[in-house]
């Protein structure tokens, strides 16, 4: 490990330890906010792991999330909770593999369209099977409290960051950066592009699914419209792009301000959240194409250049 890497690692560990102290600062509202931020950090970071290098915009987050929620919801009566989390991860990875096999060999547009409808598709199927079986919603009754959920999400975030860091250093990460730059070149240099993309999409899907499984006890009562809410997919895309997908720490830079903005808007203008989503998309495309990270890099370059001339 180089000096910078050791420094970054120490910094990351310090930040995680600091974040883990949040529940002791008191305040139920603070903790609720913490859970929301931790949840979106996991979702946006794992989204960016796949969509950052490949530029494939996945709108399937809600589908994976709902899958995880239902894994806990259906399994909690039969299995131990801690067993359900790896099961949710496996189911998420399998769903991602299936979606990837159908669409990732083709151009990005097919992938966007397919993932856009995926959550709605699963929601329809779940609603239908509930109509057939006569069962409406599910109760998830556990003795897990908000604090436990928060710490679990932090742990998951640590795993996602560590995984992302390792992938970035691996052959897979290298292959994905080449694919993102030019898929044709990647194919010619012997990279199995479809396999690389599907593998990473599986990692991303598994993380989102586990997030859903962890959050299920918080909802207590699960129904399809709640578990598969399409808004979630869009919020995650916006947060990740707002922060910037070029760096591992990029998405969290978008998650924190956007969560505060979202909370403020939905508290005072609950009907205008859709408008907020729309405007955020436009801001990202026209004003912040590389996110906050890109902005910071540009500022630093300008400062460096000025010092160079002085």
């Amino acid at each position, binding site marked *: 490990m180089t000096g910078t890497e050791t420094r970054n690692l120490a910094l990351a560990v310090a930040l995680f330890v600091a974040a883990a102290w949040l529940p002791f600062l008191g305040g139920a509202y603070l903790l609720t906010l913490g859970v929301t931020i931790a949840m979106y950090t996991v979702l946006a970071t794992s989204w960016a792991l796949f969509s950052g290098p490949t530029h494939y*915009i996945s709108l399937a987050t809600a589908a994976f999330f709902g899958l995880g929620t239902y894994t806990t919801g259906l399994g909690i009566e039969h299995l131990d909770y801690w067993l359900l989390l790896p099961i949710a991860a496996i189911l998420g990875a399998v769903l991602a593999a299936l979606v990837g096999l159908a669409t990732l060999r083709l151009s990005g547009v097919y992938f966007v369209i397919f993932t856009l409808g995926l959550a709605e598709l699963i929601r329809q199927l779940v609603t239908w099977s509930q109509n057939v079986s006569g069962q409406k919603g599910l109760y998830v009754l556990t003795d897990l409290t908000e604090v436990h959920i928060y710490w679990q999400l932090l742990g998951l975030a640590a795993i996602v960051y560590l995984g992302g860091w390792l992938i970035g250093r691996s052959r897979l990460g290298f292959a994905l950066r080449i694919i993102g730059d030019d898929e044709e070149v990647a194919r010619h240099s012997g990279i199995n592009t479809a396999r690389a993309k599907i593998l990473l999409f599986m990692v991303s899907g598994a993380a989102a699914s586990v997030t859903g499984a962890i959050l299920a006890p918080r909802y207590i009562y699960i129904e399809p419209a709640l578990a598969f809410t399409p808004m979630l997919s869009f919020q995650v895309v916006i947060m990740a792009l707002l922060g910037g997908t070029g760096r591992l720490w990029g998405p969290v830079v978008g998650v924190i301000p956007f969560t505060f903005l979202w909370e403020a808007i939905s508290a005072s203008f609950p009907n205008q959240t859709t408008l907020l989503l729309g405007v955020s998309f436009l801001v990202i495309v026209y004003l912040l194409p590389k996110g906050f990270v890109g902005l910071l890099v540009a500022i630093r370059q300008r400062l460096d250049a000025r010092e160079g001339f002085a």
Partner: protein
Amino acid sequence: MDILFTGLLLGGTYALIAMGLNLQYGMARIMNLANGEFLVAGGFAAFWFFTAAGVSPLLTVFVVAPLAFAANWLIYVVFLRPLVRRAKSHGQLEVDAILTTFGLAFVLVGLKLAFFGGDYFSYSYLARPVTFIGETYALNRVVAFVAAVIICGGLWLWLNTTRAGISIRAIAVAPDSARLVGINVTRLSALAFALGGAVTAVGGALVSTFLTLDASTGVLFTLKALIIVIMGGVGDVRGTIVAALMLGILETFVATVFDPGLTLAAAYLLFVLILLFRPQGLFGRRQA
């Protein structure tokens, strides 16, 4: 038999909606995810004119079309042309266009919610039964189908016989070469995009006579139109019509035999089959 004809009637209107998207995605090369919002806007205009002044939706179409044309032309010139200019590659343009049109779609939904609320809107227009080969159908569906056939036919003629139409098809086939033979790609792309928006909005006015819409249903129609366009082959008018009729029949079949809540699942099944076996579309040729 009943399913077949009801499906055909539904498919005919789908064809019109998908034709609008095909003009935008196939010809103007912009994946417009705000397409369905113009459908809802067209439907809303028809609803408003009918309930407020008793104007027939078939006449409202003549107001809706030019308004939607102008709105879409503005969107192309203000939002999308700068993206076309700055894009370094086709992939980059695609990502930018998807994000922008998503943003526009959400802004439009948000505005509709702010001004008109989130209620469903429906009205009763020509809800009379007509009998055809021993089965009864709703007159409004038949009228919408006939109108859709007339408009699709007109578009097809325009694309195949007029200079502008043929030029637009040339852009769809080879945008770079089209420029070399003296076709004004910038201007005609804007025209195709605006026309596509107008066609979809007219489709919306027709659909609103027999379907219930609300501010947030737009994205479902966008999704269906996209599936139809990809199934028929991007830029292929004939394929779009065949695919739309197939989807109409399949949806009606699933809704009648299984559950009306599963129509999207049925459309998806068709989509997956196409992606796996004929990603180039029903009539498309595999690209080298």
